[in-house]
């Protein structure tokens, strides 16, 4: 379930049946994607795409969260070192 790949919106085209489409770039490969479910997304935003549909906008601040945690772990490890010795 769920091959969802982050891609960057290059343009947005409202369609005749009210189903917004757009071109999304995945590392340079461009595919036509349905953007109807991410009405707040703009050009240059990243979205998660599954089977031709953008399912959510990627929150770039939260994207760093993994690395914030790693940084905290680094700091903890450094604090622990003198005691281990």
């Amino acid at each position: 379930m769920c091959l969802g790949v982050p891609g960057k919106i290059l343009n947005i085209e409202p369609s005749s049946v009210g189903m917004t489409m757009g071109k999304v770039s995945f590392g340079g490969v461009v595919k036509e994607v349905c953007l109807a479910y991410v009405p707040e997304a703009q050009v240059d935003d990243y979205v998660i795409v599954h089977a031709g549909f953008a399912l959510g906008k990627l929150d770039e601040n939260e994207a760093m969260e993994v690395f914030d945690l790693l940084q905290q772990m680094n700091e903890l490890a450094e604090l622990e070192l003198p005691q281990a010795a």
Partner: protein
Amino acid sequence: MRFVDEYRNEPDARKFLHAIAGMVTRSWTIMEICGGQTHTLIKSGIDRMLPEEVTLVHGPGCPVCVTPLELIDRAIAIARRPEVIFTSFGDMLRVPGSGTDLLSVKAQGGDVRMVYSPLDAVELARKHPDRQVVFFAVGFETTAPGNAMAVWQARQLGLTNFSILCSHVLVPPAMEAILGSPDNQVQGFLAAGHVCTVMGYWEYEPLAEKYRVPIVVTGFEPLDLLQGIYMTVKALEEGRWAVENQYTRSVTRQGNVPAQRLMQQVFEVCDRGWRGIGTIPNSGYRLRPEFAAFDAEQRFGVETIRTEESPVCIAGEIMRGIKKPHQCAAFGTLCTPEHPLGAPMVSSEGACAAYYSYGRA
């Protein structure tokens, strides 16, 4: 690739592994319930890098694997009809039905076509008004918004030659079935990040509370999985049970509301059979009566189909995490990717196929 490569680096992976190893004081069994996550775990080698106290079991996270046998047989029967263009995602084409599979139907002359998106199937229907286009709508909640939109668009366009064969399955009822089962061994869950991108994670809170298991919504890259496992083990070690979110760059508690809205307009919840597990109440979607015109099962009649599951296949136990693929008597001998007996060996997301290809013994 941005937002992909950053989550695949070795030094950070090692840090998480080190932290997990340093934290663990007893054995824990954690289940991940998404085929895509199984894939990453085995492909990157994480499952073999974790400390041995942490056991990962792979749940029924492959919608391809859990699609009921009767439905595969029905798909095959429909695909054989000369007026039909049968469209499907790639994964479904090799899943064995009672006698054959869709790829073989193609080999025998059926018009079976692989598509990337359900909208491609709608486009085919538009282009070929003289043919019946059927789309095999399988998947978890992740795929439902797309399938709902396809049906919606077909109705907007006034198409009379488009229908879907619907086999949607839902994750929370499956988790409840696993947790509620008397032989359950699972102590913590990694919830599927893209299912939760659509549905949010509020549905899991009652489950975590009732069964006292930590549930961590997790992404799909190696660092996501390592962080998800880290958070789950931490919760287990500290005796906490709550729903936590690792995949914050994509998942919010309420999920994607526009998607949920259209899904509710097009689909309604129903009971569903899960191959290898049985019927789980309220665990699937079907088309609402006002969209019945787009239901392939109604359009193509309901001849009784006698199904025959391989007596040797233990897919159900595999998918509930009771057994691992290599513990199956047929694994690697009677049952191989070239000659699969059951769905988990066919779909590249299935636990058995993953084990076989990536060489677990």
